[in-house]
């Protein structure tokens, strides 16, 4: 069975029920609208509005979901005494996210967060973190398109406050 999703720019996406269920948000909306897998009429007569996602971003989200629809539900390891864990981004996911420019990546992350697709969300936040890691603060500002209007004196103050973590 298929489900209709409608983006903010009024584009309709028809996706498999299983794909739709990968989003916790969509899943909850379907429940609220009494749509069920076994009730074709309920699926045909309703569509899910997603006012926070644009067509371009939705297409990417669906592409990711198609690839991951058969994934085993990953059991979040309950603090098995491992300390800070780095989320491992699979090769396919790396390839998938490789060509997104920074701004689009951020939009995609926003969508993954809104739709509550945990796997995609973790993939992107880790990918962005990897992009930031090792960069200088002005390079990060550039990535985020931030104009730092701090004066040198203010910067010095901040540096003083965080001096203990300097090498």
């Amino acid at each position, binding site marked *: 069975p298929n489900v209709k999703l409608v983006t903010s720019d009024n584009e309709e996406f028809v996706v498999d029920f299983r794909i739709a269920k990968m989003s916790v948000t969509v899943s909850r909306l379907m429940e609220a609208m009494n749509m069920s897998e076994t009730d074709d009429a309920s699926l045909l007569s309703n569509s899910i509005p997603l006012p926070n996602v644009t067509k371009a971003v939705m297409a990417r989200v669906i592409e990711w979901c198609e690839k991951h629809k058969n994934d085993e539900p990953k059991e979040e390891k309950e*603090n098995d*005494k*491992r*300390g*800070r*864990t*780095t*989320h491992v981004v699979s090769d396919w996911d790396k390839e998938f996210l490789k060509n997104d420019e*920074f*701004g*689009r990546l*951020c*939009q995609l*992350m*926003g969508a993954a*967060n809104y739709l509550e697709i945990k796997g995609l*969300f973790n993939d992107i*936040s*880790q990918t*962005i*973190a*990897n992009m*930031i*890691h*090792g*960069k*200088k*603060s*002005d390079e*990060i*500002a550039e*990535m*985020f*398109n*931030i*104009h*730092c*209007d*701090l*004066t040198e*004196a*203010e*910067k010095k*103050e*901040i*540096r003083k*406050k*965080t001096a*203990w*973590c*300097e090498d």
Partner: protein
Amino acid sequence: SLLPLFFPFNPSFHLCLRTWAQSKRVVEMRIDSLDALPPELLQSIFGHLPAHFCLSTVARVCPLFYRLVHDENWWNGRKKAVGVVLDEREERRDNFSLQRVICSGEREEDRWRKLSTQTMYSISGGHYGAINTCKLYTEMSGGKRCVSAGRDRTIRLWDLDRVVTEAVLTEEEEEEGETSNVRVVSGREKKEILHSVDDAHGGWIWIVTRPNSSNVTYSCGWDNMVKRWQITPSGMKESGGISLSSAVLGLDWIDGSENELISTTFLRRVSLLDVREKMMECKDEHSEHRNAVIGVTSKGKYVYSWGEDRLVVLSDIRNLSSPVAKVTIPRAYASQLSIGPTSVVAGTMKGECFYLDPINLETWGSFDVQEVCEGTASKISANPLRGIINTGHSLVTLSKLGKLNALSYGLKPRSLIDSLKLDGEPSKVDYMNDDVIVSMGDGRLVYWSKP
């Protein structure tokens, strides 16, 4: 100063942030990454980055990032994620910093993970028989040094930089062309030994220690003596001492006071020594312990002594004769104790560690080192602790059976390395600026330099 503008609870900060954000929207008409990412999403990205990088770099990007990186809730989330469990009383202390514990803890984890791939320097030939004590220090010039002493009554000052350059492969390895992490250094040619004193004491030497960037070394031993050693152009010379009433087991210098030492004896004494003159004097003492006092350490004005009677006693050098607090350690006596910035950790003859409040010795919690590191309860085969270093963000432990471990900080620690089994029975560990040294019962020193 403009800094108050950045404090989250300052109303003017929010104002500043808002105008700043508004001005951005006017200027930036194209996709703005910050519009796509609300603060909580930025924080989850930062959560994937090392804490140190967040504080040193991310926080300096802009006022918003500064605030997000200094958000207390975000740190509590990180703390939960890495599983750091602390007593509330410790967290409430003025000098406690969760940021420092997490940030330094992560770096510590990196350091210990590297240990297994690092060159291990096995230094022999300096002592005959067991070494009881070793202590790392750095010279003014930055040179890495170590002082060691033991049953052979000698004191050796080692040049660890030289150890690293002189190290060779073992003969067998050279023959077999094997690659190994072990490099053997023979101190017999004395190239690595800067100074040495034979017959420094008339009996086993228990402790040898020295303040960093100082020219003096202190030692104590089975001959009831505490001695001071001065380095002169002609070598290391005795420059003072005192004979106490029985064997001297514990010795430490007092922070920020070059004139005082604290020592403990086999016959129950904890004594404050005035070391200004060649003939040292006992200024004050207490005999709160009911049995041999195994060790002593001091921090500021506070002195912590531990003994065979299972007592840990806290006293103040300003009034040493009336101890401030004491606690009896359950099951076995503390063989080791180390004071960190906000906690005291005592390690026992049964291999347990107890976190104590440095102010009143209340017990915050305890765990069994072997259980933490290997997941097996060791209640039956107790593995006495021979060394503990409490850095305030990690714990280095050494057990009699030769296991060197590094644990994460807190009441529910985890092992940061696969415990490293040393060949033989170790006697003491020291850890400073990422350098690790262990003294062994067979007269060797085992050393790993900062990676």
